[in-house]
Structure formats: structure tokens, C-alpha cells
């Protein structure tokens, strides 16, 4: 089984490969290759590979690039942004790539930069990732010293400047257009679309925003071709995927596996099953803003299409496991508290509705639930459904709630009837 994304990441606690060692391991080969291809050819290869964005939404990467204006009339500077603002609760996959192999990300970014003819690239990193910041700074400096960044990269006509931007913390910064506002020194409210960032993004110029894991796939696709990339996967979505598990499993962690690995394999073989004394009740397959899946879904393959068929989303691919010693209503309260707090306050259903939902869940946990509360929560899942807000924060917040109301209905009822949390 091939693991292109993590093959250079030391497992013994050593630091990442430096520029020289990365080159010896085959690093930056794709850049040499890409600079001899046309930008359109690279985009075509990526389209054929079926690479879908790893930030959670799964948008086809090559298609995203095809909206960027190209040619001599295209506005400049064009921007490329690596979204390294990993703040989705339960998600810790990009940290591994950022800390473990920073040159892989930089190589991927230069290749994408060339494919869309970007002039300036930013890595938008969350402030709490201190080690990643230190390692990225060093790697960027090394890339500049070796003419892999800056003017006329490797003697070609292509030039790219790359900067590390360290955020000041807010979940909304991970949202594509919120991130653009944050980079411009504004509140990270979302922007209305259209215009899409590919046409009018940072400072009104064409901008591509990609997740870290997506970018790290690029060198391997360019080196080995789309057919190889598709062959890594068990399903139609190409490549490998970083899957993770947290909660009361025996071995919480992160693993690079073929796209489309079943939930059961991830949970039982890699995470080692549940800890002694607790039983599995359900899981959020890819971060806080995905619908619960339960026992009946364990054989679902983790990819964008199959998880959606099961009524959820793969999201970031890092699962949060709920066990039978943990209160589902308490878990929901924790989740909705997060979303209500992180709402930027721009859209009414979000700032009003999420706070309302949080208060109801808190009241239930504290034994103050009212008979109509479940209907009110049900109303919120519709009030905050997709289409009522500028961005996906509120609809995302409703995904665990609507599915919990379905799968853990009895637990909610118990809280109401007993006027207390049965787990306390």
C-alpha cells in the first residue's frame, strides 16, 4: 500500500526532512516536470485524477482552477492561499503534514501556483500551530536560497513569492471567503458569492484557496500521473486520505489509507476498537459539522460520495467517536456552544438560532428542559438549513444536531422526563 503523503514523515520524533534530504528523497521532482508543462496541461492532469478538495467540501480541484482567468489579459497579481487554519473540532490531519513535511506543501504550492500563474502565495496558518510555523519558516527560507521560490524559479520565466501569515484565531477564518477578509486585515465575515474568489478574491484579484492536504497531493499527481492516483483509491474519488479517530477508542491517531477505506476498518483495525468497558454508539465522520453515523453505517466507505449516500459527509475524514458512557445531549451542547461562539454574527439565522439551540441544550443538560424543546430544536435545523446564510457555518452546526435528534431521540426524551442528565 502506497502512502505518498506521509512517506517522508519521520515516525521516531525527528524533525522533518530539510531541503537537501527532501531532494534526495525525490522531492521537488514534480516542480522540474511541471515547469516543462503548460499550465493548462497540469490542470487537465489534476482534473483527470479526480482529486477532490480535502478541506471538507470535496470540490473537484482541477475544476476549481479552471475558473481562474488565464492568458495575457488576466488580472495580476493572482494569489494562491494554503488554508492551514485547521480549527474544525476533532480535526488534526493538516498538523501532521505541516509539521512532518513542510517542503511537500511548498512544492505542491509552487506547482499549483504555476498552474494558475499565481504571483504571490500565502500560507494562512492558525496561531496555535507554533511548531508548524517554525518549520515552515525554515523550509520557505531554504526554498528561496535554492531558487525554488522568488524570481525565475529554477531559471524559468515563472516567479512566485511565498509568505507565511499567522492568524489570530477564529473558526470563521477557515471559511474560504472569511479567510480572504482575515488576510486583508478585516473581520473574517464571509463574502457573498458570486463573484467567486477564483475571479475576484484577495484585494479583488483572482485567488485560489486550497486545503493543506489537497496541496500536498499535487507533487505526486504530477510525478505519477492521474491513472496512478486513481489506482490508490478503493472508489471513484482519487488518491489516499488522511483518516483520524478521537474519543474513547484504544489508539486515537491518524493514518494515511486508500480513499474509500471502510469506517469499520479505520475504527477497528487502526484505532484498535473501543476502550475496555465502553461501547460504540456513533460517530461524526469528519469533524464537528458532519451528521452522526451509527452502528448500521460501519461498512460505509469513507469517501465524499459514499458517506453522503449514508446521510452524512466525509468532511475532514477525522472521526469523533461517541461512546455509551458519554451523554449525547451533553456532546451536542458542547458542539452548539462552539458554533454559537464562533458565529461571526453576520447572518440572523446563525447568530440568533445557534445561541437559541445552545440554550435549549444547556437547559436540558441542567434538568430545565421544557416539553416543546425538541420541536424548537427541530425548527432550528430548518431555520439554519443551507441557503439561509452566507456561509456553511450554520448549516454545518445543524448536521450533528439533526442527526442526533434522529438517532438519539430517546436520550433527549430521558433528559426531559427525568429533569436531569441521566449520565450525571
Amino acid at each position, binding site marked *: 500500500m502506497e502512502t505518498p503523503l506521509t512517506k517522508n514523515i519521520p515516525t521516531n520524533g525527528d524533525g522533518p526532512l530539510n531541503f537537501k534530504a527532501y531532494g534526495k528523497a525525490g522531492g521537488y521532482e514534480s516542480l522540474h516536470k511541471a515547469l516543462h508543462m503548460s499550465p493548462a496541461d497540469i490542470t487537465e492532469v489534476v482534473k483527470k485524477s479526480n482529486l477532490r478538495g480535502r478541506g471538507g467540501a470535496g470540490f473537484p480541484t482541477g475544476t476549481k482552477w479552471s475558473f481562474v482567468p488565464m492568458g495575457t489579459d488576466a488580472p495580476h497579481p493572482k494569489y494562491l492561499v494554503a488554508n492551514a487554519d485547521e480549527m474544525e473540532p476533532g480535526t488534526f490531519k493538516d498538523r501532521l503534514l505541516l509539521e512532518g513535511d513542510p517542503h511537500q506543501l511548498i512544492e505542491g504550492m509552487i506547482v499549483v501556483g504555476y498552474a494558475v500563474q499565481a504571483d504571490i502565495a500565502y500560507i494562512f496558518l492558525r496561531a496555535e500551530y507554533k511548531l508548524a510555523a517554525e518549520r515552515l519558516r525554515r523550509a520557505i527560507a531554504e526554498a528561496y536560497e535554492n531558487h525554488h521560490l522568488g524570481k525565475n524559479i529554477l531559471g524559468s520565466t515563472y516567479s512566485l513569492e511565498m509568505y507565511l501569515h499567522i492568524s489570530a484565531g477564529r473558526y470563521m477564518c477557515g471559511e474560504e471567503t472569511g479567510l480572504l477578509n482575515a488576510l486583508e486585515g478585516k473581520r473574517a465575515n464571509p463574502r457573498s458569492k458570486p463573484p467567486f474568489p477564483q475571479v475576484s478574491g484577495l484585494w479583488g484579484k483572482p485567488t485560489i484557496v486550497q486545503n493543506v492536504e489537497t496541496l500536498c497531493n499535487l507533487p505526486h499527481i504530477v510525478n505519477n500521473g492521474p491513472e496512478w492516483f486513481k489506482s490508490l483509491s478503493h472508489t471513484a474519488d482519487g488518491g489516499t486520505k488522511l483518516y483520524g479517530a478521537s*474519543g474513547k477508542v484504544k489508539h486515537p491517531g491518524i493514518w494515511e489509507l486508500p480513499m474509500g477505506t471502510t469506517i469499520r476498518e479505520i475504527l477497528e483495525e487502526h484505532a484498535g476498537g473501543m476502550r475496555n468497558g465502553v461501547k460504540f454508539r456513533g460517530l461524526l465522520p469528519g469533524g464537528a459539522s458532519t451528521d452522526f453515523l451509527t452502528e448500521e453505517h460501519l461498512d460505509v466507505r469513507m469517501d465524499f460520495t459514499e458517506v453522503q449516500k449514508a446521510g452524512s459527509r466525509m468532511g475532514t475524514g477525522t472521526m469523533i467517536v461517541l461512546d455509551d458512557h458519554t451523554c449525547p445531549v451533553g456532546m451536542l451542547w458542547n458542539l452548539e456552544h462552539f458554533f454559537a461562539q464562533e458565529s461571526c454574527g453576520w447572518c440572523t439565522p446563525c447568530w440568533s438560532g445557534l445561541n437559541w439551540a445552545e440554550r435549549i441544550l444547556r437547559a436540558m443538560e441542567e434538568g430545565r428542559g421544557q416539553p416543546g424543546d425538541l420541536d424548537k430544536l427541530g425548527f432550528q435545523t430548518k431555520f439554519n438549513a443551507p441557503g439561509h446564510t452566507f456561509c456553511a457555518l450554520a448549516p454545518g452546526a445543524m448536521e450533528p444536531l439533526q442527526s442526533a435528534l434522529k438517532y438519539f431521540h430517546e436520550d433527549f426524551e430521558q433528559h426531559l422526563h427525568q429533569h436531569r442528565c441521566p449520565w450525571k
Partner: protein
Amino acid sequence: MLTSAERQEIEAEFSRYPNKRAVCLDAMKVIQRHRGWVSDESLRDLAQELDMTPDELDAVATFYNLIFRKPVGRHVVLICDSVSCWIMGCEKLCQRLTSQMGIGLGETTEDGRFTVLPIVCLGTCDHAPAMMVDGDLYQDVEADKINDVLKNYK
């Protein structure tokens, strides 16, 4: 008044962005490195430096979790309260921290040593519960061993 060291550090950021405003978050972090927090006075001085109004700058300052508009202690403890850490018992950790220090979340100890703030997911969910002190990450934190961590921060 910004000090010359602060001004120098802020101006060093200008080359990475097309305008001054884009530097405002970095600039507030520079102020925090030197003064611990962003007071009304430093906010006004900084706004002038960046061709922004104080209100514009304050709107940005108050949006971000890690810009402090109130004084903080010598050490800032960030304790993750997101879902994986919650499942793994961060509430107990939180209670231990705050009762031992005699403060609530968001408050500073009387001796000015610690401020404790809740923080969203620190992205280390396979080692929950997690916390950070002054940017140092602590994983798999046990409530009983919290003093072993805190004693390093005087």
C-alpha cells in the same frame, strides 16, 4: 506612542502585503509581545500608524480570539474545550485549574501570574485533553498532574 522597536517590527511586515491595513493583526501581535495586551491608547496609536480609524481597528481586534483587549497575566493558559477534549474530560481539568487558582475562565489570578482562557480545538485530538501555556503545547493532560506543568511558569 509606539516605541521605535515596535514600529520597526511592524514596518518589517509591510513588504508582505499590498497595503498597511493588512498588517493590522500582525501589528497588534507586536504590541502584545511588548505590552501583553492592546490598550485603548495603543489601539489609537496603532490605528494612526496604519491609516485606519480606531473603530475600524477595534472591530478587527475584538473579532479574534488571541488579541487581548484587557490586561492578561504573565502567563496565558489556553484550555481546549472542544468536542474531543470534552469527551476525554476537559471539564474536570478546567474545574481543577480554576478552583486551584481561585478564578473563573477569562480571569487573571490576583498575583498577575496566570490568565486562563478557553480555546477552540487545538488540533491534537488524539492526545486529548490538551492545553497550551504561553504557546507551549501539553497533551494528554491529567488533572492531578497540572501542577507539574504550571510550576514551570513563574
